[in-house]
């Protein structure tokens, strides 16, 4: 990493909790991120329910780039760069659909849904000698992994297997993506994707969900108004005692909640059907998981830019970089596949009044990220680091969850998770390859 002749690590003072503003606003660093982070890390691409049948496709992003998620005739999922090998034209400009071939409009090259180049105009007569079509299929990711319905990919063959990359956050994905009753039921996406552009650096988004308890004050207006699934003030039901957990080696940050098994949970009271459903799920969950039943995920970020809420709302967000000060947000919502339709509809209304560009909670987050970015770009502003000192020195192991954990009440304020995110960021920015990143070191 060549910024300013120094290293990225010099921009992130983990011990003192100070991080340079250049991390968020420097154009050169941003361009290096595209290479050193987004071309290396495991990125969330989509969900199995978006490509249910062979021939289905869904256009997604990895970093700045457009990719096509497909399911081939054998049922295998693939992720390809959405660009023709001939002259670069996007081979798919629809958002989603079903097809046998992707046919490029420019010169007619056509590709099967497993990426093979199957059609080239004038192939027999125009190329003497003919070129080897098998070397000119769509550019495919180096690795693809599916986990509880989610689909991830990386461009880097040297990246560790996805389950290793998850580290301590694996339990968080299990909890967030698992059926509410703790059983083997599936979760599925609740409909289409919300995509919108915001004038912020992507890392403000990632750190918000990694563990930023102190920003809750910003949501005072929605809490006063009251949009939660139970009547009264607030925007969600009480999830219980908050535990802040970070993965020191992998950079992920999770906020868990815990309720004792004796809790009489009253949730979703505004909808009797939904309340009944969750009460039944809780009872089954108690039977299956005992004292662990009350452990769930509130919110988290998996390095670098996949964030999720595990309960209220229940949603996955990817903050796609579109420039140092622009991010394209892609947000999806998910539910228990077997939940009754009435429950899914109630949740649908709740989720989109909470999150998204019309979400009364998310709107205030975006205002902060927007003007924090804008106010940090100046020459003088950049000289003054951000203060990430909350919760320094606190945190240890915890019997309930893995990783380095800060328990309640310091969990409400500690910035341990966001410090960890940037320490991992600096490791990626300084690394020449995955050899420098694994085994992932906590220093």
């Amino acid at each position: 990493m060549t910024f300013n002749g120094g290293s990225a690590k010099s921009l992130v003072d983990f011990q003192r909790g100070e991080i340079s503003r250049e991390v968020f606003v420097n154009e050169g660093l941003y361009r290096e991120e595209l290479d050193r982070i987004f071309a290396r890390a495991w990125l969330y691409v989509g969900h199995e329910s978006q490509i249910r049948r062979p021939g289905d496709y869904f256009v997604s992003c990895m970093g700045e780039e457009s990719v096509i998620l497909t399911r081939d005739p054998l049922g295998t999922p693939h992720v390809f760069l959405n660009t023709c090998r001939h002259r670069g034209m996007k081979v798919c400009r629809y958002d989603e659909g079903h097809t046998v071939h992707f046919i490029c409009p420019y010169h007619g090259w056509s590709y099967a849904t497993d990426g093979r180049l199957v059609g080239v105009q004038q192939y027999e007569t125009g190329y003497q000698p003919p070129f080897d079509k098998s070397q000119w299929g769509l550019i495919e990711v180096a690795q693809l992994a599916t986990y509880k319905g989610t689909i991830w990919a990386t461009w880097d063959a040297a990246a560790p297997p996805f389950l290793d990359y998850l580290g301590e956050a694996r339990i968080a994905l299990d909890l967030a993506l698992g059926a509410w009753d703790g059983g083997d039921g599936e979760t599925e996406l609740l409909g289409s994707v919300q995509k919108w552009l915001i004038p912020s650096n992507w890392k403000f988004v990632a750190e918000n969900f990694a563990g930023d308890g102190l920003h809750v004050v910003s949501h005072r207006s929605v809490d006063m108004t009251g949009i939660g699934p139970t009547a009264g003030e607030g925007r969600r039901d009480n999830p219980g005692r908050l535990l802040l957990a970070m993965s020191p080696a992998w950079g992920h940050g999770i906020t868990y909640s815990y309720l004792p098994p004796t809790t009489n949970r009253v949730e979703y009271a505004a909808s009797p059907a939904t309340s009944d459903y969750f009460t039944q799920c809780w009872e089954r969950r108690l039977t299956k998981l005992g004292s662990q039943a009350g452990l769930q995920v509130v919110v988290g970020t998996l390095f670098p830019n996949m964030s999720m809420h595990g309960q209220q709302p229940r949603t996955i967000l990817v903050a796609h970089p579109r420039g140092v000060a622009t991010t394209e947000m892609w947000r999806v919502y998910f539910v228990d596949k077997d939940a009754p339709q009435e429950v899914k509809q109630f949740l649908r209304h709740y989720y989109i009044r909470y999150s998204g560009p019309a979400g009364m909670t998310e709107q205030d987050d975006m205002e902060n990220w927007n003007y924090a970015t804008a106010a940090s770009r100046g020459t003088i502003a950049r000289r003054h680091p951000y203060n990430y000192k909350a919760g320094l020195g606190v945190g240890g192991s915890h019997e309930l969850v893995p990783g380095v954990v800060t328990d309640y009440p310091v969990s409400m304020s500690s910035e341990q998770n966001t410090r960890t995110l940037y320490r991992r960021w600096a490791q990626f920015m300084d690394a020449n390859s995955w050899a420098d990143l694994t085994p992932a070191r906590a220093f």
Partner: protein
Amino acid sequence: MANTHIPVSPLNYLMLAKEVEDFFYREADLLDERRYEEWLTIFTDDVRYWMPIRKNVPYRAEHGDMTDENDIAWIDDDKTTLTKRVRQIQTGVHWAEEPASRICHIISNIRLLEAPGTENSNHELAVTSRFCVYRNRVETETDFLVGRRHDMLRRVDGRLMVARRKIILDQSVLMAKNLTMFF
């Protein structure tokens, strides 16, 4: 004479069309002047205020160009949620609208469509219009959102009210950081 099937005389048609236009222009004034409490009163208690999401789909699948009534949308509000949005602005600490945006609604292409039967006991009228909603906030942050509205207007105690509004924005990726404005 407009191509409607409303069985009225030309003069009554003109009077009805003018009433609907005035209704929409007054609504635009209420919004632009931030008179949100009065704006809420134009909606029936059972209103559905819905803004589906647009998608890029093949020509032959044109019917699938926007999300349906059961899918995720930008907005899918009842009267309660619309009221909540107004309450949130009124707290004075809704940072996305504090300081307040400067918003201008231009409503145009107002047409009365076929009324769903003269025996419609709800006395509802189908109307379409176009909107250009311009927003400028803080220093130079500017949005320009354009699209169409499909409304069902209902006459209650003699006055028009909006019983259903479908807002069709002509963007797929939303090119605004939020949707705090009303349409």
